[in-house]
């Protein structure tokens, strides 16, 4: 298990106060905080090694290139990829998915083909496919989810077995329901049907041990900033053969072999997909984030979150008029806890929680179809999402502040389950 007190000491922002209270940061699904090791890696790069990569002979450029490429190898090892060449750096998960939609889907899909998604996708794993479908005459179909927040696997077998599916684009861990989808099984079904598989790992890679050889999917997309790294860095892992056969995503410097006035040839994978100066410093700092997670051990990260999620689910369930979405068992889900409370609007809840220093997310979390499927009065929910520096005190603070919220709006009785009168 994790030593949370020691971990917290590495995160300067956790020392600040919000509205005169201790910051209780429970918006990790949106972005995580950064340890001092990552912040220092960023300033160290700019202080000592800053130069452009892949083009200079001078010492700094050589150092910068080595630091940048070392992180590519580090990312490859982190997800057990076969080689660093399978790792493409992008801006974020969204860009990683768009890269495949542009470089693979637009080239390979034909009218009548189907792109299969699920009803719990983030807009970033839905809208790029709608654009690709519109450009190719393909169609987007969604596998629904059941009342318990798990995917309808009977429907998945049916849809993937129709013979029309060419690609399955599926979220590994739902950013709203917390559901961990059976990606290995889905991949088998898709591959049996001759379809490729893209996994949206934005919420899973930061929280679960990830092995792309076990997943057996064809593409995996995730973001550095949701796993202690800086914003502005995303990763696309893809099978080498697929990446080699894909069209470039953007044209420009660094992605070419030879350039004539009327045509060019492309650099090898992965440089072919990294046009222009990349986000060098943030990639380098991302390396420090991976080191930090490896030092903790991803198995320990997962065990910590399962235990804390179990506690959070119990505590929230004890609060009257609370409804928690997603699977009931912590083993089936990540530390993403989305709930409704006392008929209050999520924006009102989040507003009052903020006054107590508790940061949660309110809204549709970029999943409008999912919220429509939940059939709520308002198309919005409140979400608390956990990470390595959260502990039971944070959950207690959330539950206490929620009880105060109910009393503030006068919608719950004196008993809130928190035991702290306002």
């Amino acid at each position, binding site marked *: 298990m994790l030593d949370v007190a020691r971990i917290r000491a590495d995160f300067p922002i956790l020392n600040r106060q919000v*509205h005169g209270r201790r910051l209780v940061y429970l918006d990790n699904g949106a972005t995580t905080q950064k340890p001092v090791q990552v912040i220092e890696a960023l300033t160290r790069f700019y202080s000592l090694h800053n130069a452009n990569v892949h083009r200079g002979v001078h010492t700094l450029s050589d150092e910068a290139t080595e630091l940048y490429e070392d992180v590519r190898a580090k990312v490859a090892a982190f997800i057990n990829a076969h080689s660093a060449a399978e790792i493409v750096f992008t801006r974020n998960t969204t860009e990683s998915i768009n890269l495949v939609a542009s470089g693979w889907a637009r080239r390979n899909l034909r009218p009548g083909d189907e792109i299969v998604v699920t009803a719990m996708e983030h807009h970033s794993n839905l809208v790029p496919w709608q654009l690709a479908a519109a450009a190719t005459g393909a169609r987007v179909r969604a596998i629904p989810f059941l009342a318990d927040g798990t995917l309808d696997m009977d429907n998945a077998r049916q849809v993937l077995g129709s013979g029309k599916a060419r690609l399955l684009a599926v979220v590994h861990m739902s950013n709203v329901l917390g559901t961990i989808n059976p990606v290995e099984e889905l991949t088998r079904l898709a591959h049996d049907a001759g379809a490729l598989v893209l996994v949206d790992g934005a919420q899973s890679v930061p929280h679960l041990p990830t092995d792309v050889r076990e997943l057996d999917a064809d593409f995996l997309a995730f973001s550095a900033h949701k796993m202690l790294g800086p914003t502005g860095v995303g990763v696309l892992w893809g099978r080498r053969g697929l990446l080699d056969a894909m069209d470039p995503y953007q044209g420009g410097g660094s992605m070419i072999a030879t350039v004539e006035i009327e045509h060019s040839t492309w650099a090898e994978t992965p440089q072919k997909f990294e046009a222009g100066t990349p986000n060098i410093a943030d990639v380098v700092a991302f390396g420090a984030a991976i080191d930090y997670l490896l030092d903790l051990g991803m198995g320990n990260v997962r065990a910590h979150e399962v235990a804390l999620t179990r506690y959070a689910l119990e505590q929230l369930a004890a609060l009257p008029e609370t409804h928690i979405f997603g699977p009931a068992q912590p083993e089936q889900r990540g530390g993403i806890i989305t709930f409704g409370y006392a008929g209050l*609007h*999520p*924006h009102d809840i989040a*507003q*009052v929680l903020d006054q107590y220093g508790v940061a949660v997310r*309110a809204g549709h979390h970029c999943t409008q179809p999912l919220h429509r499927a939940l059939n709520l*009065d308002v*198309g919005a929910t409140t979400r608390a999402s956990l990470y390595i520096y959260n502990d039971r005190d944070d959950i207690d603070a959330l539950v206490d502040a929620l009880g105060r919220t109910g009393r503030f709006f006068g919608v719950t009785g004196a008993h809130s389950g928190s035991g702290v009168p306002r």
Partner: protein
Amino acid sequence: MSDRQPASDGDLDDIYREIILDHYRRPRNRGLLDHPDISAEGVNPVCGDQIRLSLKLAGEQITATGFKGSGCAISQSSASLMTEAIKLHDLSSAERMRHEFESMMTDGAEPAEELGDLAALQGVAKFHARVKCALLPWKVLAEAIKERDGSPVTVTTES
């Protein structure tokens, strides 16, 4: 941000003044009117708030107001307060109140006297994420007036 005043419950009372909570718990003019002269609908796609507004007119005067909606305390109380405020006013003075309300919410203007109880929403102005909630019913009103001769339309806070 470091020089911000440590906030307390006082800030909560700024945004959720008693009069706002009262209109949230007991909305006035709730329910759409039969055979309205003008009506419109609006949504805030960010949070899913919805307001439908219907007005009855006698000439230029608003004789009756009704709204239906779902959403946060700010958007719903703003709709309730607005439908009270514009009742028995001319369309032109409703438009003027809309401008006054908007300048209070977005330009930091002091509330004009004729806004009356609507001044209670002034505290929302410093919570930037919530200004749109307060403005939603007024955007719907503007659209209703604009579309007076046409069919009902839907507006969003993002346009």
